[in-house]
C-alpha cells in the first residue's frame, strides 16, 4: 500500500492541473456559446 503515498499527492497535483486547464477554457470563452459550436459540425466546410 506504500504506493498510495505517491498516488494520493499525485492525484492532487493532477486535479490542480485539470483545474488550470478548465480555467484556461473558461477565460478563452469556450463555454460562452455551447449550441453554436455543436451546430457548426453539420455545416459544409469552408473553402
Amino acid at each position: 500500500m506504500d504506493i498510495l503515498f505517491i498516488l494520493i499527492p499525485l492525484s492532487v497535483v493532477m486535479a490542480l492541473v485539470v483545474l488550470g486547464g478548465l480555467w484556461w477554457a473558461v477565460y478563452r470563452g469556450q463555454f460562452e456559446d455551447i449550441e453554436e459550436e455543436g451546430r457548426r459540425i453539420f455545416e459544409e466546410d469552408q473553402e
Partner: protein
Amino acid sequence: MLTNTFIPEDVSPNPSWVILDTPDQWLRFSQPVGDDPKHALVQSSLLLDDLRCAACSGIVERGLTGLPGIVSARVSMSKKRAVVVWSPDLILPSNILSAIQKLGYSASPASHNENQLNATAKSRAAFWRWLVAGFCMMQVMMYASPSYFTKAGDIATDINHLLNWAAWLLSLPVMLFSSRSFFSNAWRDLKFRQISMDLPVALGIGITFIVSSAATFDPSGWWGHVVYFDSLTMFVFFLLSARLIEVKLHSKTLGAMEALVSRIPENTERQNLDGSYTRVLNSQLNVGDVVRVNIGEAFPADGKLILGQTKVDESLLTGESTPIHKNLHDSVVAGSYNLGQTVNIVLETIGESTQYGQIVNLINQAAIEKPRLSQLADRVARPFLFFIILSAVAAAVLLWDIDHGRALMTAAAVLIVTCPCALSLATPAAMLASASAFVKRGILIRHLQAIESIANIDTVIFDKTGTLTDNHIELKSIHVKEGCAELDSLALAAAIAQHSMHPVSRALVTAASQSELSNNVAFELVDIQELVGAGMSATIKVHAIHSGQLKLGSAQFCITGHETIPSADKRYQQVYLADDHGWIATFNLQEAVKNNAAQAIAQLNEAKLEVELLSGDQLHTVENTAKTIGIKQFQAACSPSDKLLRLQWLKQQGRKVLMVGDGLNDGPILASAHVSIAMGKGVPLTLAHADYVLLNGDVSQIPQLIRHAKKTMWIIKQNIAWAIVYNTVCIPLAFFGWLSPWQAGLGMAISSLIVVINALRLTQFSTVQFTDSSSKA
C-alpha cells in the same frame, strides 16, 4: 457552391453608416486586437437581424470573409451576433454593414458598453466559481469514499491522514474562492443587522471547515478526528448551481428585450445654416435643430413636421401597427419610423426625456435590477434560523465548562446536521425549475417573486384589444340589395379595397381570397382614389349590373339618396358599397377573437377566479366580445384613469388582481396591479413594466401559468416543511450527542437531495391535469 453567388462584387457604403467610419465611433462597438502596430486589427461585434435558419450564419460568415480586409467573421445564431475582425487599412465599418445588407440581412453595431462587458466578465466569474466547486467536490468525494465503505481502523492511520490532507487541499479553493460571496453577503447582513440565508450558510461552512481542518492536522486533539470536506464541498456546489441557473434565466429574459433597445437611431442628417445637410450623431443634436428624415429611417427625437407630410409607424410606442398619417405641423415621436416620404422636422425634445428614451431607460433598469428570490423563504425560515443558531450557541455554552472539545463539536454537529442547506435550497430550487418550464413555453418572467404573487390572485382583468382579440378585423356577414349576389358584391368591394392599406380594406381582401369567387363577372376599375377618413371611389367599366362611380366606405360617404338600407347593427363596424344607382351591399366587420380565448376564460372561471374586461372601446363592441368569450363582468369606454380607479377599488376590497394587457395606456395599470402579464407583441414600455411576457400572445397559457405557479408554491411549502421536520428531529439528536458526525453529514446530503428532486418535478408543465379539467368544462 451555391452560397458563393451571394458574395457582393461591389460594396459601396450606405450613407447613414459613414458616420461609423471614424476610429472614435467604431471603438464604441469594437476593440483593437493583435500585437503588430503596423497592421492593427479591430474586432467588432454586430447585432444581426433576420437570421432565419442555421444556414444563414454560414452565408454571412462566408460572405464577409470573402471581402478584402476581413480577417475573420464568426456568427452566433443563438445570440444573433457577429464578431468580425478586420483591418482598418483595407475596409471600413460602413462597408461591412453594407456587405451584410447586400447578403439580405440587417446589422447594427452592438453597443459595446460597459454594462455588457461587465455582464460577460461577471457571468464568466460565476461560471468559473461553480466549476471550481463542482470539480473539487468530485475530487474530495474520491478521497472521502474509502471511509464510506470501511470500518473504523481498516485504513492505516497514516493513509487516512494523507487522504484528509488531500481533501483539505482541494477544499481550499472552494472555501477561499467559490464560497466567497456567502461570506461577503453574511458580513454585509451582519453590518446592517439583518439575518438572511447567507449567515447560517457562512457560519455552517466556516465552522465545518475549521473543525475539519483541526481534525486533519491534529487528529488527537479535542476537535475529534472526523472530517466533513465532502459535505462541505457538495453543499457549496448545490448552492452555486442554483445561483448560476438563476443568472442564466435572467440573462435569457433580458436577451429578448435587447433587440428592442438596439433599434435606437444612431445618426441623422442635420440642416446646416446654408441649407445643406450633414450627417451627425444623435447625441450631438440639440433642441431647435432641423433634421431631414428619409424613408425607412427612425425619427431621432420628438419634434414637429415643418416640411412635407408622411405616414409613420408608431408601433414601438402604441402597439398600433397601422401607419398613421402626419400632416405639416403634426408632432412625431422618437423611435417611430418614417414610411411615407422624406420630411424635415424641428426637434422639440431630445435624449432621455423623449418617450422613447424613457422606454430604453426602463428596459435598462430591468437589466440592472438584481434577481431576488421570494420573501416566503425568509419569512418562514428566519425564526427557524434564529433557533438553529441559538441552539448551537446554547450547546456550546452549556458544555463549555465540562469539556471544550465536546462543546465545540456539539455546536458544529448542530450546525452541520441542520446546515440550512435544505432550507436555503427549498425556495430557489423550486422557483428556478418552474421558471425554466415557463421559458420553454415562451413565457418570460421578469423576477422570481412574480411566481409567488400570481399564485395568490383572485381576480383577472383583461384589456380587450390585442389581448383577447387578434390585432385585425374580419368580415362577419354581408347584406345585399335584392338581385345582387353576396359574392359578386364582395368581389367588387375587394377589387377596390386591394388598392388600400386600411385595416377594413385588408379584411375585405382577405375575406374575398378565402371565399370561392366566381370569376365570370368581368369588370375593370379605373381612377381609383382614397379619401382619408371616408372611403374609396373608383369608376367602373364593362359591368353587367353596376355602372358609374363605385364607392366603398362609411354611410355618409356612400349613401346619398333616401333609399332603404338595413338598419345599422351596433355590434359591427359597417362598411357600405354603392354605385350611381345607390346602395349595393353592407359589410359587417368585427375584431377577430383569438381562438383559445373562450376556453381560457372558461378555465379561469372554473378555477374560481373573477374575470373582468375593461376596455376603451364602444359599449356594443365590448359587449359582443365579452359575450362571445364568456366574460360576465365588463366595462366599456374606459379611459386609462377609469381602469386605474377600478383597479384601486378592487384592491381596496382586498382583491389580488392580475392584469393582462398590452397597450401603452396599460403601462400604469400593469405597474400598479399585483401581478401583470403582457403580450409579446405589445409595446416595449408595457413589456418593461410587466412581470410576465407571453411571447406568442397565446391567452390559453394564462390558466396554465396560474396553475403551475400554484403548484410551485405548494412544492416550496412541501420543501420547507420537510426541511423543518428534518431539522426538528435531528437537532435534539445532535444536541445530546446521539448522532455521529458522519450520520449528520449523510442526513444533510440526503435532505438537500430530496429538496432538489422534489423541485425538479416542476420543470415540466402539468398538461395532463389540464386536459382533464378542460374536457369537463
